[in-house]
């Protein structure tokens, strides 16, 4: 059976499953719509959190980045998992005890201030919105590559599905679809990894195959072999990094604190019944996430070996099907610098500028002609990093059903994250903005109706961003973490661990952290991109890692302002004492 038929089959089956779950788990009350009635089992919540968290970036892009960056890719591996330790130890149990619906709820109540609540609402919507636009693009890419439908059609189909279960089911519907989506995406990620690990190392467990010997009779460890191959071709050895230690440190810290401060992840811990469930649930979530995150570097190493072995010194005229198909999609390019008809894959950029710009017409060997100047060095091959996960099963010549499975997995990853983000945005609007600020008199039924309307509008807005992508949105996604780290993380943390922390300090801290981080990013990314290199960065910290410095400034400003201004009212101090203890108790002021 053809790849295309199987892809339709798998995607159709998985969509039918998601819709079935949505119908079965409709929400009738705001409590169910916002936090699934707080009745979710901790294991189910762990799986839902994992699917919520692992986006198109984790599933489609991460292994590709590691494949080309090697050791430097560790910042994503550690950064996007280490945050769960912070979440489990410092935030989740206390926010669960607080038992409201949203992050702005906590900030508004803890800092007895409508301004703080509004600042939080704006941050939630901004962070979630930039993030969701990336997911919708991911949906579009999967559809257009595999089903050969128009990218816009893909986005519209994706929107329709999310619309159905997010608007109808709210958090309850989303939670159970996310559990199903986790199963689909992890199966789709592990199956090809297992096959490829068996082929290369004879070890069926890809996480261990990564550290095993090659199955080619050489008895060499896979990573040594890969280091040898990469060095031979004039590339940075796979297990060596290019980034400076200080930059790695700051980026990893920003990703960790940002993860712990992301509203759509935090809200998942409001859905379990008890404080102790919130603690263990973070542990289950990390196990589910680690299954993919410990496989990703293995997939990356396997892919790099397979690409080098299959492509370097290959005659273009005999290029495999996948190579020409991705070239036709504009994600692979070959510039025959020495006119020998062979593909030389070496270190350095093949093209200048690095992204291919195609001309019409074909070269002598049948390759697409390029408008780019040749890059320095002998490298003739450009490969887009985002295609690695999708193309690898074909590169390794795995059966068609596995190729189709990966497409369904990528969609599951993108849709589950999009749904979680859309729900957080709609909750912020109907609950935090309307009910708590603008229209406190609305009743439960009206609030639920506003929540559904807001979810519907958010789906449509996200879809439009997928169809008409704004360049800046794509750029900013990577920085959502830095902004979350510099704004939410310190305020929530100090709000729990210091009874003295007050309104003035929280607002001053958030404004400082956000303004600094935002300006630094905007300066290097948009105002003076030509200065965006290590020589001009503050202390050698790239815009990707600057959120950590913003976070430290937020902490410093908060701690100083807190001492110069009056302590919070007694009932707020009592609230803090109360959320620190799991048992429900009478407190006496």
């Amino acid at each position, binding site marked *: 059976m053809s790849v295309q038929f199987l892809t339709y089959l798998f995607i159709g089956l998985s969509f039918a499953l998601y819709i079935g779950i949505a119908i079965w788990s409709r929400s009738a009350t705001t409590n169910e719509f916002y936090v699934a009635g707080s009745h979710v089992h901790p294991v189910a919540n762990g799986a839902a959190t994992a699917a919520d968290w692992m986006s198109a970036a984790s599933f489609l892009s991460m292994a590709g980045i590691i494949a080309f960056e090697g*050791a430097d890719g560790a910042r994503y591996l550690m950064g996007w998992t280490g945050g769960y330790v912070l979440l489990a130890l410092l935030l989740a149990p206390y926010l669960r005890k607080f038992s409201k619906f949203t992050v702005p709820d906590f900030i508004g109540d803890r800092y007895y201030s409508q301004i703080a609540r509004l600042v939080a609402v704006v941050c939630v919507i901004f962070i979630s919105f930039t993030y969701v636009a990336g997911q919708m693009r991911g949906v579009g890419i999967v559809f257009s590559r595999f089903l050969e439908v128009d990218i816009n059609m893909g986005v519209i189909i994706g929107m329709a599905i999310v619309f159905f279960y997010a608007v109808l089911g709210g958090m309850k519907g989303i939670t159970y679809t996310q559990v199903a989506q986790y199963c689909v995406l992890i199966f789709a990620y592990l199956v090809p990894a297992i096959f490829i690990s068996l082929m290369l190392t004879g070890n069926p467990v890809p996480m261990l195959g990564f550290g095993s010997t090659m199955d080619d009779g050489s008895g060499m460890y896979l990573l040594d072999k890969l280091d040898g191959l990469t060095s031979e071709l004039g590339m940075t050895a796979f*297990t060596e990094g290019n980034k400076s230690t200080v930059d790695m440190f700051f980026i*990893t810290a920003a990703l960790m604190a940002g993860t712990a401060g992301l509203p759509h992840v935090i809200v998942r811990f409001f859905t379990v019944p008890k404080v102790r469930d919130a603690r263990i649930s973070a542990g289950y979530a990390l196990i589910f996430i680690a299954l993919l995150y410990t496989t990703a570097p293995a997939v990356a190493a396997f892919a790099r070996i397979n690409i080098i072995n299959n492509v370097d010194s290959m005659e273009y005229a005999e290029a495999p099907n996948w190579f020409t198909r991705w070239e036709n999609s504009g994600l692979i390019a070959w510039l025959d610098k020495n006119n020998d008809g062979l593909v030389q894959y070496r270190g350095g950029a093949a093209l200048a500028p690095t992204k291919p710009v195609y001309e019409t017409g074909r070269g002598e060997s049948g390759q697409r002609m390029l408008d780019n100047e040749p890059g320095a060095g002998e490298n003739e091959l450009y490969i887009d990093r985002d295609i690695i996960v999708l193309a690898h099963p074909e590169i390794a010549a795995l059966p068609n059903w596995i190729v189709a499975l990966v497409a369904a997995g990528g969609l599951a990853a993108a849709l589950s994250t999009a749904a979680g983000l859309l729900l957080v945005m709609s909750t912020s609007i109907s609950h935090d903005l309307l009910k708590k600020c603008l229209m406190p008199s609305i009743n439960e039924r009206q609030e639920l109706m506003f929540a559904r309307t807001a979810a519907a509008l958010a789906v449509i807005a996200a879809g439009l961003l997928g169809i008409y992508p704004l360049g800046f949105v794509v750029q900013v996604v990577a920085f959502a973490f830095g902004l979350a780290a510099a704004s939410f993380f310190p305020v929530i943390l100090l709000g729990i661990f210091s009874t003295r922390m007050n309104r003035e300090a929280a607002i001053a801290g958030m404004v400082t952290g956000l303004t600094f981080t935002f300006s630094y990013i905007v300066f290097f990314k948009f105002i003076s991109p030509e200065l965006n290199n290590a020589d001009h960065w503050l202390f050698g910290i790239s815009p990707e890692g600057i959120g950590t410095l913003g976070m430290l400034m937020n902490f410093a400003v908060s701690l100083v302002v807190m001492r110069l201004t009056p302590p919070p009212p007694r009932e707020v101090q009592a609230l803090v004492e109360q959320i620190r203890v*799991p048992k429900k108790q009478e407190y006496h002021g």
Partner: protein
Amino acid sequence: MSDKNDSYWRANVVLILSLLSVWFLVSFVCGILIVDFLDQFRFFGYKLGFWFSQQGSILFFIILIFVYVWRMNRLDADHGVDEDDQA
């Protein structure tokens, strides 16, 4: 706030700080700061520093959360603040 709750909170903070020092050690220290030094040692097919940064730290993170859950459940029971207890 009662003294009982005070000592519960202190024990909780001590536990968090000790677990977070391990968290810092396996990721930031072993995976980033001294990664080149550790890379001269082998751990099966990996260079040791590389292993910490790409796989090992993640395994430690999981262990840390489960140790925390286990210790906190005991701490809750010892201090009589378990949410199942009746006041």
